[in-house]
């Protein structure tokens, strides 16, 4: 009797202790909008936990835009400077500029060749982030793209190029809206597209080499934008542009494609509104999965990213549920999806248009010159 009681107490101890001992927390820190945190917490995390008993995935968001990546950079950099043996971030999701800085300062661990999904990526962005070499350190989680959203009731044929847009706003004043450079990346992207189209240095902005003397050329093209701004409405932020389109206050404006489709899927968007990608293009960007150099659970982090980059997850999670363009080569994803679901993403912008007019953001030095030039020339 005594023995049996002892046994049951021991058993109880094992039962309660076992999960506690095996419980590992994978810390995922994500820059970007709330939907990125939702993606990990509501979709990716639970699936990964189910496949790996004893693992808990905890995702934290650091906020939208480059500032979100900046916060992750500052945290890792502080831990590096403090000489910590292990860092408390296992997987980070960052923007291109953030990734470039982090690779440069040796805050990240190369991992692409360690995981199977590393072979599935094909786009140049897996190696090059705004001119910085990030080969091996990053895998694109998804790609997103800026495009014009327009109301076809008011705009029968959307402008096909920036030149046509310039004529269009003069005929239809206060019908085009964008959010400047201080209200979010869709406005910044529009300004980048404008400079690429009007400065004649599109190629050079993307591929380099960086030439500090090009500032004059950039500022000349921005002078045209100052004139253009007289005919447009400034909107309060990325969501502000979509709001104003919905309320019929503007007829056209640059938006993030994924945000547009998500609003559409949630019924927050006028279902008539369509997308168009003008020539010579608007920028888009990937978000990257990265692993900090001294991540406490590096092996598990690799497993997590390998899972996140698998064609099944990319098809069901990234494309179907969250309306992003896939991070890995589309050919692996398309075969895992219903044609209808796949085509939904390409209704307005065909894959051919996307590959022709979906541009990367300029090199980071040019990026800085352009946004500062905007303040100097357009805002003064």
């Amino acid at each position, binding site marked *: 009797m005594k023995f049996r009681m002892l046994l049951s107490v021991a058993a109880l101890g094992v039962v309660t202790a076992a999960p506690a001992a095996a419980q590992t927390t994978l810390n995922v820190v994500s820059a970007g909008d709330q939907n990125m945190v939702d993606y990990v917490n509501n979709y990716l995390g639970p699936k990964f936990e189910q496949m790996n008993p004893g693992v808990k995935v905890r995702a934290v968001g650091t906020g939208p*835009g*480059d*500032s979100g990546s*900046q916060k992750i950079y500052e945290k890792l950099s502080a831990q590096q400077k403090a000489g910590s043996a292990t860092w408390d971030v296992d997987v980070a999701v960052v923007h291109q500029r953030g990734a470039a800085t982090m690779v440069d300062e040796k805050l990240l661990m190369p991992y692409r060749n360690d995981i199977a999904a590393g072979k599935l990526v094909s786009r140049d962005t897996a190696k090059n982030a705004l001119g910085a070499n990030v080969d091996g350190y990053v895998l694109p989680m998804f790609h997103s793209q800026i495009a014009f959203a327009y109301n076809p009731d008011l705009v029968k044929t959307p402008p096909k190029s920036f030149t046509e847009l310039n004529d269009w706003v003069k005929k239809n004043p206060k019908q085009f809206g964008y*959010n*400047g*450079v*201080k*209200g979010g990346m869709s406005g*910044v992207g529009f300004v980048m597209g404008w400079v690429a189209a009007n400065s004649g240095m599109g190629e050079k902005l993307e591929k380099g080499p960086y030439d500090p003397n090009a500032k004059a050329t950039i500022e000349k093209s921005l002078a045209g934008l100052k004139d253009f701004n007289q005919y447009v*409405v*400034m909107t*309060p*932020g990325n969501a*502000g542009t979509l*709001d*104003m389109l919905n*309320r*019929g*206050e503007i007829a056209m404006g640059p938006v993030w494609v994924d945000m547009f489709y998500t609003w559409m899927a949630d019924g927050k968007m006028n279902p008539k509104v369509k997308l168009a990608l003008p020539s010579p293009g608007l920028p888009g960007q990937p978000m990257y999965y990265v692993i900090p150099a001294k991540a406490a659970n590096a092996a598990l982090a690799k497993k997590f990213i390998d899972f996140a980059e698998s064609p099944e997850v990319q098809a069901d999670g990234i494309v179907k549920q969250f309306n992003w363009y896939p991070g890995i080569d589309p050919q692996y994803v398309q075969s895992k999806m219903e044609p209808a679901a796949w085509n939904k993403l390409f209704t307005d912008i065909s894959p051919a248009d996307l590959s022709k007019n979906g541009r990367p953001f300029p090199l980071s030095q040019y990026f*800085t010159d352009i*946004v*500062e030039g905007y*303040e*100097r020339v*357009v*805002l*003064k």
Partner: protein
Amino acid sequence: MATLADGAIVSAPPGGRGRWAAIALVAPALLVVGVFFVVPLLLSAVGAFRAPGGGFTLAHFDKSLELYTKDLIFTVAIVALSTLLIALVAILIAGYLTLGENARAVAILRWLYRWPLFIPFVVAGQIMRTFLAKNGMLNHVLIGAGLIEPISAESMLDWRGIVIAFVWKQAPFVTLLLAGAMASLERQHIEAARNLGAPRWRVLIDIVLPQVRGTLLVGLVLSFVTMLSVLSVPLMINPNSPTMITVDVAYRINTFADYAVANALCLLSLLLAAFGAAFYLRHAVQRAEDT
């Protein structure tokens, strides 16, 4: 009458032991203020003058003034105008609460005016974003009431939106202070003036206001300084040029990781706030001397 503001000035206790005990008691609070407020403030001030190499420079101020002079002026103008309007609204409401003769109207107003006090700035910004838009609720009401033509409806999401949000949010705060001060006045003055036939507005301007001038000014100074530091409202209503200096500070950090120019901009807005602080201190000292 002792108020909260006077609480800071207490007579020193006699004898050495009490004095050390008092210092020991305030030490934790002082430490927190020192470590989490004064030190970062000093670091920020130092950062505004530090060149990338570590030397002294004024380059960050040059850049701040080159790019953001317009925004600095805009900020001062917006905050000054808002302060003025807040004063007007607060005087009207507090005046009616003190001198109003319809008990029911006074009760309703007393209940209503405090609501915005409990609403954070960011929420106020969000409310205004849909309320003041071109096809927003305000214009719908105005068009529906036949007050404006649909074609002349325009968005107020510019400087006007910021001013409206600030006044809406801060006027109740000043009203609260002002109404409190007015309520504690001796009623005889008011009643004497009324008996001699003065209309209520004369009583408000000539009898009541001069006696609560100090409270009104303190409330306005506190609002002025608070509004200088609000980021959410301009960011949500009008982040484009010209905008308030807080948006520029956030922008320098978020887009360029440029803490130096951001620090310089902060120091410039600190200068603006310092006017308010100097005024507040002078008034507080005066009050301490009076009592």
